[in-house]
């Protein structure tokens, strides 16, 4: 049963299995284990980013395609939910319509970009997605009458998903059973389902062909697989999942804006998560996203402490300024591409 659920792709390492199990349990019971707005918020972000990073890994790790437009697809899902909620009024139907519309739009755009650039050379794809994504980001911030511009959009989600709605009067294990909790579980199970679907896809014959094309596209074509077809399909699937993850994010935050969904910083975050966790294995996405989001929330505090402690030294505090945390992640990123191309997961698997 369990093997079927994870599509026969076991972690293949005791340490990794334990770590994954701990992460799963921690996320599944996050509102009960770590009560508090900030920690539940962090847990929800971890869930969403696991799905998002896993979908990116389908392209980068399994397909060998570098895309810089993943936040664009993520943002399309988020803006889909936001626009539907504004124009259709609050309700589950708006959330559904927005998610589906966002996912379809993302898939269509991915299809067009894929056909255009993957047909010629895979390396074009990185540059073209970078150009298109930044153009879309500019467009979103310019068309403020539709998208709210830089300020973004605030909207209402169904009452059953907000903390105003109470399912029970009593607390359960000291936690209020309210709409916020339901919202968290929507995010959790939504991300879990997306992740399991991706796991199913990469372990299907389609996923195997994709890996074959990554390793040697000439040879794969010679056997009779159209590389363009497989690469474009992978891009579309990946974009759809990213858009759905964006919808979940929009439902959780009740706000969308260019900074939270479309910015290039998030794209870099996704890249870092994939590389640190391990390319070419979806469990890498789980590890990478968890490490990164937790680090993002708590590393800056740590750096602030370190900066204060070393305050009298001449230059070093400048490097430890909490705003410079991206510097250290960049260094970590370069080092991990050099020395651990298979990331944390690859390391753990090799030991055993």
């Amino acid at each position: 049963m369990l093997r079927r659920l994870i599509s026969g792709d076991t972690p293949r390492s005791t340490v990794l299995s334990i770590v994954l199990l701990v992460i799963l349990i921690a996320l599944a019971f996050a509102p009960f284990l770590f009560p508090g707005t900030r920690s539940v918020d962090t847990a929800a972000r971890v869930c969403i980013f696991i799905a998002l990073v896993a979908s990116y890994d389908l392209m980068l790790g399994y397909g060998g395609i570098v895309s810089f437009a993943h936040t664009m697809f993520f943002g399309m899902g988020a803006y889909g939910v936001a626009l539907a909620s504004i124009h259709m009024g609050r309700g589950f139907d708006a959330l559904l319509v927005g998610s589906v519309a966002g996912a379809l739009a993302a898939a269509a755009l991915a299809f067009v970009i894929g056909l255009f650039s993957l047909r010629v050379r895979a390396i074009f794809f990185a540059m073209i997605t970078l150009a298109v994504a930044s153009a879309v980001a500019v467009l979103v911030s310019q068309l403020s009458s539709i998208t709210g511009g830089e300020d973004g959009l605030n909207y209402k989600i169904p009452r059953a998903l907000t903390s105003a709605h109470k399912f029970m009067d009593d607390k359960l294990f000291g936690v209020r059973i309210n709409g916020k909790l339901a919202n968290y579980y929507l995010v959790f199970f939504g991300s879990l389902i997306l992740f399991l679907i991706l796991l199913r896809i990469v372990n299907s014959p389609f996923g195997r062909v994709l890996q074959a094309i990554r390793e040697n596209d000439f040879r794969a074509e010679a056997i009779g697989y159209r590389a363009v077809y497989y690469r474009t399909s992978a891009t579309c699937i990946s974009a759809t999942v990213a858009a759905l993850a964006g919808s979940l994010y929009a439902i959780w935050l009740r706000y969308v804006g260019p900074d939270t969904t479309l910015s290039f910083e998030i794209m870099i975050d996704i890249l870092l998560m994939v590389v640190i966790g391990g390319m070419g294995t979806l469990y890498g996405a789980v590890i990478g996203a968890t490490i990164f989001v937790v680090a993002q929330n708590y590393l800056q505090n740590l750096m602030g402490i370190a900066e204060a402690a070393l305050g009298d030294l001449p230059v070093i505090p400048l490097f430890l300024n909490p705003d410079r945390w991206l510097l250290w992640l960049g260094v970590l990123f370069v080092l991990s591409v050099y020395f651990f191309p298979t990331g944390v997961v690859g390391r753990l698997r090799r030991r055993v």
Partner: protein
Amino acid sequence: MSIAPEHAPTMETAGLWHRLEPYVPILLIPALVIVGFLAIPTSSSWLTLTVSGLAMGMMIFIMASGLTLVFGLMDVINFGHGAFVSVGAFVGITILLSLGGMTDAPSLVLNLSALLLAVFGAMLATAAMGWAFEKVIIQPVYGAHLKQILITMGGLIIVEQLILVAWGPDEIFLTRPETFKGAITFAGAAIEKYRLVAVGVGLVVFLAMRWVLRSTRIGLIVRAGVENGEMVEALGYRLRLVFVAVFIAGSALAGLGGVMWGLYQEVITAHMGASIMVLVFIVVIIGGLGSVEGCFIGALLVGLLQNYIAFLAPKFALISNIGLMVVILMWRPQGMVPVVKAK
């Protein structure tokens, strides 16, 4: 025995289109200028826009040329090229600001020498940085595109953050040297002096580059290396050294472009290199990866189109470049001036 073929060969005259075809890319520039003239109501604003479009195109060309050559020669795609632009701008502008006495005086000689010093400093800094970047970041990942993209992106992040460490997080505003301020009026159109300077510098760089590539021995080796590197190495040339030299030259040009772009915008940020890279990539793609001429034509097209559209429909300026790229890739999937590879 077969009958000997007739000895009166007829020369079929090629049609006009056939003869014109190699020149189509270069003819697109005047075509776009004419379309702009028809679309823009007043001719004086058309002239202003054309000059600023050319200036912008020239600056983009300066930044993009190194990138495209590096790709053509060694199949290395450097996403960190924007870092050189930023560093060049910061070093150059810092020198310029420290020479305040020379830039504030209304003397062309003093202004020019300050500017030259700044450009020289910036190019020196980015050339040194290019050498280090090549050694540390790029050398270990030859032949692996995926890793190159990731690593150079990582390099870009690190350099951007180091700029923030060195110069602080705020953007730096500046004014141009005294004699380059203001505009001259020509045929009723106000043309900023600095834009004319930018056009001039761009043309000089392009012609110099063309001369080096077409008429010197090193240029011959570079062109041959782009076409068939293995053969050039078999002839005994160490292409590796040539490549490092091209990389350093390309980085220095990016630094020059950075200084010029900073003076054009009159503000510099650590992020400027990364944001200009979007245009640079579009230019490199539509020009044909590895082709300097294509890069030049592409840069001018992008600069002109961006300025015309910014005047006619401001919100769609960046989208228009994507549109241009789509149209050109539909017409020529390998770019306007495709590079012939003997592989």
